[in-house]
């Protein structure tokens, strides 16, 4: 019974994914690029940042960079938790 439900759900999910892929643009030809054009036009003009990638990482999408810093911090914390001295004494 459980197996049948899972198979039906997988088929439905696969059909939905195929339906979503139907409308995708061809590789190498992006459909609409207003955001890219904005970044390329304005990063040097308004922010005077020659490196567009840095202006996106630290300014336009800075909130993502906070997530990256949090990921790194969590990794360091977990490694400290695994490899700290006195492991196995408690």
């Amino acid at each position, binding site marked *: 019974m459980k197996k049948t439900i899972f198979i039906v759900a997988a088929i439905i999910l696969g059909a939905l994914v195929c339906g979503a892929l139907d409308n995708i643009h061809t590789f190498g030809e992006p459909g609409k690029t207003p955001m890219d054009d904005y970044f390329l036009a304005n990063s040097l003009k308004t*922010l*005077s940042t020659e490196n567009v*990638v840095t202006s996106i990482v630290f300014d336009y999408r*800075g909130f993502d*960079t*906070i997530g990256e*810093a949090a990921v790194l911090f969590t990794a360091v914390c977990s490694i400290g938790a695994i490899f*700290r001295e006195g492991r196995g004494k408690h």
Partner: protein
Amino acid sequence: MRPLSVVVRTGCDFFAWFMIVFGVNIVLHGYMTPGGGFQGGAIIATFLVFLLVAYGGKKVLSWANETIYEILFEELGLLCFFILAFLGLNNSFFYNFLAVPLGTVSSGILSIFPSSGTTALMSVAVGIEVTGALSLVILTMFKGIRLFIQNPPEEELGHDR
């Protein structure tokens, strides 16, 4: 790890410092050349790996101070990053309040900062943070290797000699 031969150690003496110079160069110029905080920080953290491979574990553990990496690097970098993000809250989160648009000349105390404003400063902060984080990972994992050996021998386990 035992120290490697004299040739390797001399090469490390010559070239390990250039790694730091190169990494700091990439971090400081993150706003105008390819690179930035993460990449430059990773290059600076390579310095510790250089020393660890060439000089062996005992010497490097006596040199390296974990508190510096923990407090000065990791926490200072993260705090600078967050404070810079919150300073622009007058307009919006992550607002670049120090940026000077192209063609205008900044005056007063603002002229000591690069014209790209918080982008350059955040790049430096993230560089400091990544340096501390990766160096801490290397140091902690190297210390932790010994915990998994049942009866650690007196002599260090090595790959040379």
